[in-house]
């Protein structure tokens, strides 16, 4: 009765993921995106498979996006938001995950405040693990949807100048974006307060700048990272007003941006902190498109992880 164990594929991060693999995810997402225009928003691809969203951090957007992606591909989706309760009861992470796997989960989407948790789970449970954000490590599906949004608008990522603005140090979105963008042949510049830029980025080929006004006119894409106030406890962030004066995308700075540039934001935006409300209405902003593309990209990832040796999404 014991079926031979399948080799499971995982999506932990974009670091080291080959270009062909990223391209294939983006190509597949171009097809899954078509579901938005269809009479029946349902594909039978994951019928009979159980997908568990295991979230140790609050998240509405990412969880909803994964949930919809799973449902539209006919998986049975269960949301497990681990509040303090299990932790209070003394249940360890691995116990929780093994319980979920024992209930028959085929796919576990995990978000956790500690870096490395998705990788750890992928080693101890028999299910495909997708990283939905782990600590300051990676958030690969966010970066994939950013890449998809750029490629969709610009035709290619190669050769584009992409500027990431904000708290690079604490940002898993920035990390995944840097890996993905470099692999796809983009030029990457990060801009932020010196205290929030990790050392060593130059050695990867990333430019580091502190003067946003000087960088904006030469940007093809500007990705405004969210200032995560919950992560600013070490006094590394000057105060919000000072941050805004130097690094926020304001109306004045919108004028510095080229007419064909793209504005991205991973959401949810702190309006008045990293961007002003007028940015949302700017024709160059792709912030709502990013939400739509997020579902398409996650559908593509689900498809590629769940059919035997998907090969390559294992990075």
């Amino acid at each position: 009765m014991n079926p031979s164990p399948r080799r499971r594929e995982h999506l932990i991060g974009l670091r080291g993921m080959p270009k062909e693999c990223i391209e294939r995810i983006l190509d597949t997402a171009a097809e899954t995106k078509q579901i938005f225009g269809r009479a029946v928003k349902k594909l039978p691809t994951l019928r009979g498979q159980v997908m568990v969203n295991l979230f140790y951090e609050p998240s509405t957007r990412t969880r909803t996006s994964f949930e919809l992606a799973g449902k539209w591909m006919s998986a049975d989706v269960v949301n497990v938001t681990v509040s303090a309760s299990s932790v209070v009861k003394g249940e360890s992470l691995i116990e929780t995950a093994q319980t979920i796997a024992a209930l028959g989960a085929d796919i576990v989407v995990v978000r956790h405040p500690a870096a490395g948790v998705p990788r750890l789970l992928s080693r101890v449970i028999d299910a495909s693990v997708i990283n939905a954000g782990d600590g300051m490590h990676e958030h690969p599906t966010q970066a994939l949807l950013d890449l998809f949004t750029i490629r969709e608008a610009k035709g290619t990522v190669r050769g584009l100048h992409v500027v990431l603005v904000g708290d690079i140090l604490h940002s898993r979105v920035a990390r995944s974006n840097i890996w993905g963008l470099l692999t796809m042949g983009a030029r990457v510049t990060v801009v932020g307060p010196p205290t929030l830029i990790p050392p060593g980025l130059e050695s990867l080929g990333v430019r580091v700048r502190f003067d946003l006004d000087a960088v904006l006119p030469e940007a093809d894409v500007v990705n405004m990272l969210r200032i995560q106030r919950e992560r600013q406890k070490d006094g590394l962030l000057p105060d919000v007003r000072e941050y805004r004066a130097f690094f926020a995308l304001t109306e004045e700075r919108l004028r510095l941006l080229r007419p064909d540039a793209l504005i991205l934001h991973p959401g949810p935006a702190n309006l008045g902190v990293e961007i002003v409300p007028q940015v949302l209405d700017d024709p160059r902003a792709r912030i709502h498109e990013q939400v739509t593309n997020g579902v398409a990209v996650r559908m593509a990832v689900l498809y590629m992880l769940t059919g035997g040796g998907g090969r390559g999404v294992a990075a």
Partner: protein
Amino acid sequence: MAWVDKVQVMDEDGMKRAMTRIAHEILERNRGTENLALVGIHTRGVPLARRLAEQIRHIEGADVPVGVLDITLYRDDLTTIAHQPVVRRTEIPFDVTEKTVVLVDDVLYTGRTARAALDALIDLGRPARIQLAVLVDRGHRELPIRADFVGRNLPSARHEIVSVRLVETDGVDAVVIQVKEEDL
């Protein structure tokens, strides 16, 4: 283990005659081209659908819309495939609702591809009717599915491969039966 050609069962002329006959049969069955649409199933159903549209234009002087259907996300054997097949473009540039849609594929075998194509098509809308046209029907059905238009009925053994080759995809028009080298 290599597959080798055993016998060619259709050449360029044979294929052309079969396609011309199918075009006539489609027109006859549907009394012309009104509300008619062709949808080719990836890969080789696509050029075959285009050829049928060309024939119909030749016979009837009317343009019939042609769509492309990729059924990868509808397959029922995904977990048994070693590597995930690439999802290709589905492009149906017309509303299928109330249309008579002729699905076109190269080979009808177990019927599982046709089953998946039916599901995929129905998810796009509600066609008035769906018909199936294939160049070769090789038997061995596993589902209660039959073709409306058949180029050639070709009794085959399960251990054989029926290989349809088209100029557009393979550089030559031919239908060939292949067997494993050691069975030759």
